[in-house]
């Protein structure tokens, strides 16, 4: 069975772009999460027609397939289940066209996020979504996960930056969702495709919006004796009618870990620090900086450090972005969570997170997008200690539950994938989930495209009027 599948793929892509050795398959069993699956074969198409051929072969053999970008996903979205085909888009790295007047570009899905911005920077534009993994994550992966990043506070997440996608649908048909024009006829299929975690087909070309670079930038670090004061500052800035480009928070454990790692002069005695960046035209910028400092003072800010030059700004951002490297000095392993709560609930939910971690005997660092309430509790641990993984998972579940209970959501930017699939019931009723499944089934009635993700089992595409399929009959 697998031999014939491999032979068919080799027939289209040649031997060098189809891999079925055990060693090679092992490389694609997981993404950046700690979940694993199995794949029967990994293939690397380079064109839309080749992706289409791979999907057609999968259909002919009745096997599932999963598209994969750089494998930096944190929720197991690219983990192959049940021995499906991994279709790697990593070789599709062309920027196909750039329109500098209306600021958009057609790109292949394997283009790396930061590479895209670097390639268009001479035009005074960039791709706004900036996940922490932006040096290595791909545009296709950003589309699949509707990725965010610090600067999505003001600019919006990936969905706001995707104009159209050329896709191979799960049955092998090629079409374009969305379009070059602003109001394509019919339903917003582009909009539902972005963030569908590879379950509605494979994007092979993406038309992205490019964002004007900022004429001026001011970055400041504000530190506080209590987390609550820092969080209150965030709410007050927003209530005052400002939407800074980014508002990031680091708690004390994180500040200490990062300072030990990069020596940026961070306030290690503070309970929390806010990294606030405002962008725009000079007069507006100065007014915003002044107002933010005033608000911070009302909330008992301990010190205010405004970056004096680009080097200092880069250093402050390096502190934020190297948090994940820094924690390796504390414990060998970490589990990064991703939930969102209303901004006003940040102090209360952070207290809960400290309490949960403490009860499970774990250390937790918090470094996150405070401006949009997007928490990233980082549980650090040593997997070699027996029973630790179980405690990490138990604590993680409680953190997710506490976030949802506070009026929040399961994930802000990492996606549901496998990781949170079975938590979907915390947020959605069976009726809600059936509606999501109806969309999936309209695109993929055979459930071939990345099955087993997002929607809790059993979710089937049986005809609407038939009885539910009995347990165990999944796929």
């Amino acid at each position, binding site marked *: 069975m697998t031999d014939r599948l491999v032979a068919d793929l080799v027939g289209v892509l040649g031997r060098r772009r189809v891999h079925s050795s055990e060693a090679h398959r092992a490389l694609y069993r997981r993404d950046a999460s700690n979940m694993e699956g199995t794949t029967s074969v990994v293939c690397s198409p380079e064109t839309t027609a080749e992706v289409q051929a791979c999907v057609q072969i999968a259909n002919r053999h009745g096997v599932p397939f999963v598209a994969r970008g750089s494998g930096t996903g944190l929720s197991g979205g690219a983990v192959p289940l049940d021995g499906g085909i991994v279709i790697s888009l990593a070789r599709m790295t062309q920027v196909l066209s750039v329109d500098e*007047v*209306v*600021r958009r570009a057609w790109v292949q899905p394997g283009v790396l996020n930061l590479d895209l911005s670097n390639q268009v920077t001479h035009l005074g534009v960039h791709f706004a979504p900036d996940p922490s993994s932006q040096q290595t994550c791909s545009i296709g992966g950003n589309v699949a*996960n*509707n990725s*965010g990043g610090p600067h*999505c506070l003001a600019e919006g997440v990936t*969905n706001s930056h995707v104009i159209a996608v050329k896709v191979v*649908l799960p049955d092998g048909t*090629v*079409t*374009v969702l969305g*379009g*070059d*024009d*602003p*109001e*394509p*006829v*019919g*339903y*917003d*299929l582009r*909009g539902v495709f972005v*963030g*569908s975690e590879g379950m509605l087909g494979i994007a092979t070309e993406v038309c992205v919006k490019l964002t*004007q670079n900022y004429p001026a930038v001011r970055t400041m670090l504000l530190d506080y004796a209590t987390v609550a004061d820092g969080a209150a500052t965030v*709410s007050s800035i*927003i209530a005052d*009618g400002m*939407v800074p480009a980014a508002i990031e928070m680091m708690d004390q454990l994180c500040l200490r870990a990062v300072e030990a790692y990069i020596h940026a002069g961070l306030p290690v005695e503070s309970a929390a620090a806010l990294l606030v960046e405002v962008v*725009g*035209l*000079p*007069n*507006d910028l100065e*007014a915003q900086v002044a107002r933010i400092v005033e608000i911070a003072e009302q909330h008992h800010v301990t010190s205010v450090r405004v970056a004096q030059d680009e080097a200092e700004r880069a250093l402050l951002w390096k502190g934020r972005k190297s948090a994940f490297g820094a924690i390796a000095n504390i414990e060998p392993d970490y589990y990064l969570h991703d939930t*969102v709560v209303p*901004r*006003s609930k940040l102090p209360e939910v952070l207290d809960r997170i400290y309490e949960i971690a403490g009860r499970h005997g774990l250390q937790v660092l918090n470094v996150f997008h405070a401006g*949009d309430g997007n928490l990233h509790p980082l549980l650090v641990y040593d997997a070699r200690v027996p029973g630790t993984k179980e405690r990490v998972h138990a604590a993680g579940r409680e953190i997710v539950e506490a976030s949802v209970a506070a009026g*929040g*959501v*399961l*994930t*802000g930017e990492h*996606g*549901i994938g496998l990781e949170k699939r079975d938590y979907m019931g915390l*947020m*959605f009723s069976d*009726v*809600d989930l059936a*509606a*999501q499944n*109806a*969309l999936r089934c*309209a*695109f993929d009635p055979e459930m071939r495209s990345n099955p087993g993700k997002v*929607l809790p089992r059993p979710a089937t595409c049986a005809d*609407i009027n038939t009885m539910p399929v009995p347990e165990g009959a999944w796929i």
Partner: protein
Amino acid sequence: MDLSEFAEEIGGDGPITIAGLGTRGGPVDDVRPVMAPGGVEWFRPDEMTVCCGAGTPVDELEDALAVERQTVAIPPTGTVGGALAVGRSGIRRLGYGPVRDTVLQMRFVNAAGEIVKAGGPTVKNVSGFDLCRLLVGSHGTLGFIGDVILRTRPLSRYEQWFTTTSVEPEVLLRELYRPSSILWDGERSWVLLEGHPDDVREQTAAVGLVAGDLPPALPSGGRWSVAPTELRSLVGTGRFVAEVGVGIVHHEHPAPARTVDPAVVELHRRIKQRFDPTGRLNPGVDVLALA
């Protein structure tokens, strides 16, 4: 009326249509109409979010938001639900983004009369498939919107329209920093700038814009959707006002017919079949025929 009463009224069988204030075409003729609940449920200025019934008039929502100097990127007149069901953005789309980006959470009533929640209440959320996107612009063919949580935005402290006949629209788009709107009728351009008055003054001086009148009345014969790179091709087609950088064209003539890829037609058929198998919601409305 609350949401469960709305759902009950919709029920599970028989043709049914959704009515608002009738500003965007109104309900389907000769079919039993229902109206969505109205009123602002809550408004949290420090979250920049607001929750309201779909039957809330857009003007009423804006009045509530203006108290805290906020607004929402939904075009004026009619109801919130009507604006979302039709999915057309206002003339500030260049600066504010499309109307679909304002919806964070939506509760709609499906063809079985059940309440379905899509999205979530926070400003950032990627939990599950984004059915809000599917419902915005679906013209009531997949479900009737009951209530929504929307992302608001600050009202700018200062705004001013400018006009020019000497600076080309492409130059305006290139030189100005994030204008809220650029309109062009083939000869004259109108530009809306918002922000700090000194910044606005410096920007307009740099490109040679003068403060001008409000933009002209928009021709209402047709709403064309063209690639923003193709605006020059409009010259000679009749009287129009085009949204530069966006591609919406308010034209004196009806929009030319557009072709739809058969694969997209098939996806529409399957989605409608899954969401409304008996075709009871807004019967006769074909979203692919609404150009």
